């Protein structure tokens, strides 16, 4: 009798936490998105004004385009980095302990502060920073490059720096599961190194790539502080505009914008997960 209900009891704490701190708050965001804003007060009402204002504004479109641009650039860079870092660790490092050690070396920064890691680019990219200093000393440039900091370049650089680990881990997992005999088979069938990579490794790491892509894209689309700090205030994203709204107590417009963004993310994730069964991917034996 007890045994039948045991799994439910074991799942209850997690479920309660998710209901209280994820489901309920999101319901409140949806509710408030229909409220009216009057000066600094948020008044219970049922109005589509917040949505109408967002959807009819050209500014919104530019925010979304900017966000998508950042997401695509970060995705492409982190995919290339993540794929080859994982490839090196799985297929080129022979000693397993060394491979785990190097893998941890990539992971450790993830367990430290994102805000601090972002700020640490300042002394590197600034006008009197490390890169400009080195380039000036080498005589490659005559005047410090201004494009390095407070630009799209620095924003995407910080994203890649912060989020590539989310690409490395799932791809590393997928690659670790590839049967090494396939390489021999590919070689026997006459495939070269590049062809094996393209026709054997790439298809078999597809699920890892999809999971990594979901992480990276949702993290970039949900960001506000990297855009705010690394663009020097010159650029904005959907969530950074939401942050500006909340700073001036405009909760209802921010909530409407949040609902639209959540819908877009849901559709995107639903499309991407058609290519991969996340739960199956995790439970599979490594």
């Amino acid at each position: 009798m007890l045994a039948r209900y045991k799994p439910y009891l074991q799942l209850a704490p997690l479920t309660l936490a998710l209901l209280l701190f994820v489901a309920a708050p999101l319901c409140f965001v949806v509710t408030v998105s229909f409220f009216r804003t009057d000066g600094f007060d948020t008044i219970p009402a049922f109005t589509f004004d917040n949505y109408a204002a967002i959807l009819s504004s050209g500014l919104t479109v530019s925010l979304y385009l900017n966000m998508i641009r950042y997401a695509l650039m970060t995705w492409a860079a982190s995919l290339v980095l993540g794929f080859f870092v994982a490839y090196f660790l799985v297929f080129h490092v022979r000693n397993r302990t060394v491979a785990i050690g190097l893998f941890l070396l990539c992971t450790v920064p993830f367990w430290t502060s994102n805000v601090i890691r972002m700020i640490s680019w300042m002394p590197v990219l600034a006008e009197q920073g490390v890169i400009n200093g080195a380039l000036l000393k080498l005589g490659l440039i005559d005047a410090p490059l201004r494009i390095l900091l407070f630009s799209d370049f620095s924003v995407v650089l910080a994203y890649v720096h912060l989020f590539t680990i989310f690409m490395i881990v799932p791809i590393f997992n997928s690659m670790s599961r590839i049967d090494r005999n396939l390489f021999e088979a590919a070689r026997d069938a006459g495939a070269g190194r590049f062809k094996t990579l393209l026709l054997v490794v790439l298809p078999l790491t597809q699920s890892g790539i999809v999971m990594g892509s979901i992480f990276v894209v949702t993290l970039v689309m949900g960001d506000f502080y990297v855009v705010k700090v690394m663009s020097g205030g010159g650029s904005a994203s959907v969530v950074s505009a939401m942050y500006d709204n909340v700073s001036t107590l405009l909760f209802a417009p921010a909530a409407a914008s949040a609902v639209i963004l959540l819908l877009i993310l849901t559709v995107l994730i639903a499309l991407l997960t058609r290519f991969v069964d996340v739960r199956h991917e995790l439970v599979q034996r490594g």
Partner: protein
Amino acid sequence: MSAIASTSVPSRPWTFYVLALFFGAYVLFLYGPMLCMYVLSFQGEQGALSFPMRGASLHWFHQLWEGRTADIAGAVARSIPLALIVMVITVVFSVAAGLGFRRRVRGSNAIFHAVIVSLTAPGYILGIGIGLMFSLFGWQTSWYTSALGSHLSWTLPFGVLITFAVFGRFDTAFEEAARDLGASSAQTLRLVVLPILAPGIIAIALFGFTLSYDEFARTLQTTGPNNTVPIEIWSMTQNVTSPTIYALGTVTTAISFFFIGAAILAVVLIQRRRRAPRAS
């Protein structure tokens, strides 16, 4: 000697050297800026935000600790207990859920989807939602209630994903053997299941602690009147233009490194003990 080595170990392909260089460049990209920041935090009193170093001292750490720029001591005294509470809750809830998820119970897919939503929903939006919920219910937001909840929405998904990976490799024959030998279900859990899962549990604890300690986006609207460390860092990025902010970066990263090191050491010790032959 070298002849023997070259026959027993096949020579490395040229791609090894190219990718090793690529990997080295990535590690430099990962750690280089952080190292610059640590070095710059030890500047003299004339120090600025970029190189060259102007003297060497602990001046900026003193500045930081005197609290002229922000209440750092107070923030650390909140962030560490909060991270420890989040760590314990994350471990208990995730492992319990991991045990429950092994049976195909009704609604388990819905719970799993909620976990994915919790993981992928923009943190700032969840923070706004929790803040709105507290204000509409008339509750006061604080670091040990609303911020605690917002942190759980970030750490629990990682905890659950790790238990999935760990339980996927767990051989249920051990449990059956324990039961056959007359162990009660509590004994089986304490003496068989938990020890086998120990490295995974330490991993969950590490994620629980560090992700809470550094959580920023979800905390901004939920921390209430008293700030945690990342919120203090954020307010410093808005108004501090001295190396104090680098000093804070060095201090908070050192705290993180301490816990990461402790967790890795614990896992290494457990693995070594497992591999060592038994004395008796």
